[in-house]
């Protein structure tokens, strides 16, 4: 158990890089955050922002070489970086569990799902075969798989996508982990099934007073679930803070840009022009100088932004931080203001 009031997970200056023929890819570049019991921390960003690599480096899941991980991952006070694999295995699965986007590729097609859940239980506890099997059925029941006792003898291909993701969650929760890392857990699912799975995650967290690290590109899911939000761009955290601060008082142009680019199902007018972010994300081998977002930024002042890298500085309270020289300009703008400035048909400018 962590000391009272202490973070369950403290990540400090985490780096993960890959050595390739083309050069060094800095996939995660100095990420820090704390996660407490009962909290949901969402890591958001687009493809290539480094959000999934962050999750994998926490658990020592990156093959090394070519990956090189440095920094601190303090789990209940103990540093997991560089921990020997046998020790790591005791943490992974038992104390920290993971759910991935694609359940099919993480399940063994040759074994029944009941056996796969029971295996995890046997691996991390001293239960007998019989007890582990009963636990597997109990978990399947808990995650809402109907007729669990019968379905435990089925194989993964006999389940639908939503049911497979439930099996993955059952496996993840079988040993009562303190932290669940969910990497795009509902991206492959239809929206009504997504609602079921998110509800299940939320309930489980409340029942077991564990914590969730949620990795997603979907800002709607973040708005519904996250207590704290971390926005990543090109391997770095560009904004971090309580969910309401990040959504309503965005201080980084990238966060604001994402919100202005997004069509909303609750948009009554629905005729606002969407505001794309100009250009494309940078190559992680040749990251732009200064602020890595500056070539795409509508708030930039080149003489500053292309030269000085902005620190992740506190604004309006210690909890809310943004890495932008002009964070005070950004906070006064709403996503709808950006949308109003988008030209329509007549003057449509070339974009990405």
């Amino acid at each position: 158990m962590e000391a009272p009031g202490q973070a369950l997970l403290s990540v400090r200056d985490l780096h993960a890089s890959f050595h390739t023929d083309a050069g060094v890819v800095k996939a995660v570049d100095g990420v820090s955050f704390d996660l407490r019991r009962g909290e949901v921390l969402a890591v958001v960003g687009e493809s290539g922002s480094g959000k999934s690599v962050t999750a994998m480096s926490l658990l020592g899941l990156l093959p090394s070489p070519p990956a090189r991980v440095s920094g601190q991952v303090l789990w209940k006070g103990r540093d997991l970086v560089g921990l020997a694999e046998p020790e790591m295995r005791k943490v992974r699965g038992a104390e920290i569990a993971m759910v991935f986007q694609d359940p099919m590729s993480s399940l063994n097609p040759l074994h029944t799902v009941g056996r796969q859940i029971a295996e995890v239980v046997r691996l991390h506890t001293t239960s007998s075969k019989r007890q582990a099997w009963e636990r597997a059925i109990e978990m399947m029941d808990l995650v809402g798989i109907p007729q669990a006792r019968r379905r435990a003898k089925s194989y993964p291909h006999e389940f639908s996508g939503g049911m497979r993701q439930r099996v993955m969650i059952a496996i993840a929760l079988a040993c009562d982990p303190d932290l669940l890392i969910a990497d795009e857990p509902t991206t492959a699912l239809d929206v009504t099934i997504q609602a079921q799975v998110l509800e299940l995650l939320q309930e489980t967290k409340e029942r077991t007073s564990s914590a969730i690290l949620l990795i997603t590109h979907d800002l709607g899911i973040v708005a519904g679930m996250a207590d704290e939000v971390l926005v990543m761009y090109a391997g770095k955290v560009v904004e971090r803070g309580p969910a309401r601060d990040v959504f309503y008082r965005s201080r980084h142009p990238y966060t604001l840009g994402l919100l202005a680019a997004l069509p909303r199902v609750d948009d009554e007018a629905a005729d606002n022009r969407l505001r794309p972010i100009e250009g494309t994300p940078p190559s992680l081998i040749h990251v732009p100088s200064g602020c890595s977002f500056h070539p795409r930024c509508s708030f930039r002042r080149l003489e500053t932004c292309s030269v000085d890298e902005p620190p992740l500085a506190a604004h309006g309270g210690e909890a809310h931080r943004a890495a932008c020289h002009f964070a005070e300009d950004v906070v006064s703008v709403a996503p709808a203001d950006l949308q109003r400035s988008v030209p329509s048909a007549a003057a449509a400018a070339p974009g990405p």
Partner: protein
Amino acid sequence: MSAPAAIEPKGGPGPAATAGAEPLLQVRDLVKHFPVRGSLLRKDEVHAVCGVSFDLDRGQTLGLVGESGCGKSTTGRLVLRLLEATSGSVRFDGADVLGASKRELRSMRRRMQMVFQDPFGSLNPRMTVRKIVAEPLRIHGRFRNGGQARVNELIERVGLSVEQASRYPHEFSGGQRQRIGIARALALDPDLLVLDEPVSALDVSIQAGVVNLLEDLQAQLGLTYVFIAHDLSVVRHISDQVAVMYLGRIVERGTRDDVYKRAAHPYTQALLSAVPVPDPDRERARRRLVLKGDVPSPIDPPSGCRFRTRCPKAQEVCATEDPALVNRGQGHPVACHFAEVLDVVNPVPHDRLETRPTP
């Protein structure tokens, strides 16, 4: 670029604007059954599309939404006759598409084109962008007369530069590749585009640019779109008319506001209530109608109403009587015996939320 064109207001009573004129696209009772391979009982069939009907006026966008396996993509392909329908009819500008001869179909296809989700999978990796965009012109024998100029115009129209035209697809980002796919679809100056999940594979910052491009092209060229997507937010943004599909059937159809503000089918309501909104206070104030279970197999769909196995309102009549897609007093057609209007997207007025104190 062509002269500035105003964007038509959306969400209004679409068909009224062109009252009297015949719809560009008329689809009636479209049915598609696929045989199941390796099935012991040879009569096993996947009922992919079952009695789909809609009209679409020139210059309008119909959003076709539903979850995987609902038949929305199959419907798109049947309309263009990329798949042969089991029965039903499709009329395009008055002409019978499903009964057309090969020659007639060829000339019709110039006027109706398809854009796919995966721009990479649908672009030949060994052809330059210039060749890809020129290909339809060559196939239809229209390249000789000013083809090169036409290709350049198309490339610029979709927001790419002519200097990029000698590059290959892999040198472009996802958003740019989708623009190339759109340029190719526009080459023969079509009237109708069937867009199958055209922005689903793109990151949001890039997706917005492609959505804007589609809106601009529609305003400039008077295009008509069938926009197939599972993303209900994008569909609300881009559509004039919306049809919601479940297990091969249209369960609700109407103008954008009919479907998004006055949803009356329990499935539409569940679907809309499940879409998360990127706004913490509003998202947490919403009531989610969570459906039980999974979509049943289209090989053996439920009797009566196909949604009844997951429907919170289901009663005996739902198992025996298939509800017709008709207006039951909601102002638009709904296939439910117990249709009832409910605003599930914005149950709490905006102003009340915005005045909430900051914790």
